[in-house]
């Protein structure tokens, strides 16, 4: 556990990507099985201990520390695990740290009844850094700036194997990944996944921004506002995977049941409707899809009210043939033929937009706002299907965001690198004429869109303009105007203003603009396309 704790701390204090890769690779080479496998699982967020959650940690702390002192500490530190590791009463005896594998075994054996007894016993065996590492490992919330991709790249670097191979063999493997280490470190046969419906890493797009592309080389498609999914059938089983590789087959049983041919398909999960793109070939809003997300089981009523289907973008593997090395154009031909054999109620193929120039496409994209479509995708016709985001192959071109001027109302301290800064902002619009006594009503919340310099300025603004405190929340004097950018706005019963923004972010700080000139609720309401 000490080596793992040292690794976590070193990662926290290292900002360079290469230095992080080296730290992880060194650890993986130096540490024996199965500790290194568990550590790798922890770094890639692959561990889950149902009995050990933040709530249990908070409860355990409350039994030892005054709740108010705990809340003040948590608010200042910005991280529950770190707060707990620091507040934990130092045991009288010297630490007797477990190995990572031993810690995992004990954590996995805990039940909701035993956690309040067994977790303290485990924490008493560690020093402050060890407690931090243990709690991070136990709750799976690392927040140390290590993506799963980075950890896999480090794994590849540690043993000099290709990262694409690592990605490929990774899925279907479970921690502590003995076959994976045997293959990479000791030259054993790679783990095989032919008869298992494994997840394959997604190909992703860059924002187009200012890039100019030659439309002769690119195909355009609509960017649908659902969730990206991969549907895999192998060995008589079908699984539906989300963008992050989570198995969501249980959430969409009708989709899982509809694919019976061995294949790996890439598409957008949507709900039938006409909100996006109109009645002909359209789909319901993201809000409708949201009713279906996050459920482990689905009622019959849900299935009827919000029928899901997948709009197919791509095919990776069809009937045993791996098509990923082929061009988009070739895969598209296979996809169109293949899709004819699928249930049209559950699958259709994403339409290609005919546009010969970027200007023409821009005009089409501009009209898309009326159809409530998020934007367009550009895919290089000769591009192979490669994992991750590669420059020049796929682009997303979202329509320009909507903008509205809002007034800062409340602020809260952030987490992670924004810890101890006031960086979560709630802002509002006027419910009438501010010169006639109108009030501000909250319309949204955002915690990004500003630079580190602006963050410092905002933090000090909040401190200097606080008029009220409600626990960790500060109410400001409502003097600062933000230009807020957002993708769309919807009716919502959850907010007093009756509106909710999608993807709001601070686009500009308008310190020059008087608060009474900020926008009114009615202006925002006009942008609703529900």
């Amino acid at each position, binding site marked *: 556990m000490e080596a793992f704790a040292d690794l976590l*701390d070193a990662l*926290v*204090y*290292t*900002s360079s990507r290469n230095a992080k890769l080296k730290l992880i690779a060194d650890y993986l080479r130096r540490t024996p099985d199965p500790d290194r496998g568990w550590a790798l699982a922890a770094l890639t967020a692959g561990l889950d201990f149902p009995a050990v959650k933040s709530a249990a940690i908070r409860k355990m702390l409350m039994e030892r*520390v*005054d709740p*108010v*002192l705990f809340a*003040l*500490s948590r608010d*200042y*530190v*910005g*991280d529950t695990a*770190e*707060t707990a590791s*620091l*507040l934990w009463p*130092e045991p009288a005896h010297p630490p007797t740290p477990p190995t990572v594998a031993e810690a995992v075994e004990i954590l996995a054996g805990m039940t909701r009844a035993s956690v309040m007894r067994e977790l303290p016993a485990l924490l008493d065996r560690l020093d402050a850094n060890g407690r*931090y590492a243990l709690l991070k490992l136990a709750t799976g919330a690392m927040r140390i700036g290590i993506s799963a991709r980075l950890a896999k790249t480090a794994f590849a670097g540690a043993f000099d194997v290709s990262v694409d191979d690592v990605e490929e063999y990774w899925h279907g493997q479970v921690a502590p990944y003995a076959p994976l280490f045997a293959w990479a470190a000791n030259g054993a046969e790679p783990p095989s996944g032919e008869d298992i419906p494994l997840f394959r890493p997604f190909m992703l797009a860059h924002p187009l921004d200012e890039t100019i592309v030659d439309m002769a080389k690119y195909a355009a498609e609509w960017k649908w506002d659902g969730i990206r999914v991969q549907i895999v059938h192998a060995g008589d089983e079908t699984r539906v995977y989300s963008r992050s590789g989570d198995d969501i087959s249980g959430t969409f049983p009708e989709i899982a049941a509809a694919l019976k041919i061995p294949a790996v398909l890439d598409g957008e999960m949507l709900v039938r409707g006409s909100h996006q793109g109109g009645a002909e070939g359209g789909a319901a809003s993201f809000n409708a899809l949201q009713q279906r997300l996050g459920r482990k089981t689905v009622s019959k009523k849900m299935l009827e009210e919000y029928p899901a289907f997948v709009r197919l973008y791509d095919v990776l593997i069809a009937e045993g043939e791996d098509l990923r090395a082929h061009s988009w154009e070739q895969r598209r031909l296979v996809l169109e033929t293949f899709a004819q054999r699928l249930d049209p109620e559950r699958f259709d193929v994403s339409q290609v937009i005919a546009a010969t120039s970027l200007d023409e496409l821009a005009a089409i994209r501009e009209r898309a706002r009326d159809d409530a479509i998020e934007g367009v995708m550009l895919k290089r016709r000769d591009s192979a299907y490669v994992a991750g985001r590669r420059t020049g192959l796929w682009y997303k071109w979202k329509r320009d965001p909507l903008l509205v001027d809002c007034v800062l109302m409340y602020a809260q301290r952030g987490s*992670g*690198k924004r*810890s*101890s800064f006031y960086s979560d902002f709630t802002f509002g619009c006027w419910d009438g004429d501010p010169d006639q006594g109108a009030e501000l009503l909250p319309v949204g919340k955002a915690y990004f869109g500003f630079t580190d310099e602006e963050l410092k300025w905002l933090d000090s603004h909040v401190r200097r303009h606080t008029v009220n405190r409600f626990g960790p929340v500060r109410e400001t004097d409502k003097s600062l105007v933000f230009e807020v950018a957002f993708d769309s706005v919807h009716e919502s019963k959850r907010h007093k203003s009756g509106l909710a923004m999608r993807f709001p972010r601070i686009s500009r700080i308008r310190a020059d603009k008087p608060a009474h000139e900020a926008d009114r609720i009615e202006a925002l309401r006009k942008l609703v396309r529900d």
Partner: protein
Amino acid sequence: MAASWIRAEPFGIHIVPGNCWVDPARPVDTALVTHGHADHARGGHGQTIATPATLAIMALRYDTRTGTVPVEYGETVSLPGGVKATYVPAGHVLGSAQILLEHAGERVVITGDYKRRADPTCPPFQPVPCDVFITEATFGLPVFRHPPVEEEIGKLLTARAANPERCVLVGAYALGKAQRVIAELRLAGYAAPIYLHGALERMCRLYEELGIDLGPLQLAAGLPKGALAGQSVMAPPSALNDRWSRRLPDPITTMASGWMRIRQRARQRNVELPLIVSDHADWTELTETISEVNPQETWITHGREAALLRWCELNQRKARALALVGYEDEDD
């Protein structure tokens, strides 16, 4: 309320009968200054009453050659209005003092900034019995428990020894922290020259003039990169990520501060090796000191006063927070 002759105003503590101020944030006729940090010691007062070391430190920064009244530790001065002031070591930095005020049969202690750990550069804090204890609360949260300084100095020496091709760059405040870290390094047996950023030189020289031995010191400026490999360099925190540090051979950036306890605070400073070395009392010391001094009332000046207030409440101690402005959070 106890000690009604003392008022907490936004810019300082006012001793009403003598019309004197303690650590005022703006120029006044008569100022009692606890120590030389810029947020407590400012120039422009008609008369400044402080320890000789604090006055010497202030003279480096401001034109305070006129109107200075030196007071030795343990010495009592009489202020107008029948108020007596006694200066007692606070253990914070060289010259730092608590001020005991006596008037109308009441005793009030103003700690200024203080710590309880041993510090080779200044005499230790002495608890003084009093009716009202006016304490700082810089590290007034139970997450702050400073580890033994030897452990932290050990980390620094280990990092230096393990990286002969790099140098260790220690960020430390120019007054107090820098000299303490140097003195602790010497206690740990580190005898090699320590290389300084120009901004630290004058204060180190002053410490030496005042009798604190810091061993061999040299300016880092003008030396070729290679000469500093395997060496220890010290700079003010502002220079850590500045152009200045580019002259150094792949420095291991460290910072000596109580804030380094919190990972994200260290990260916000781009620190690679955080050293938890503080010149302030940690949570345990703040609360134990209040218990030890055992005043009738505890007033809290600056820092994380909410948590210390809560502790007083839980321990049935009468307490209040003073809303003072101008004290910096960060100078540790």
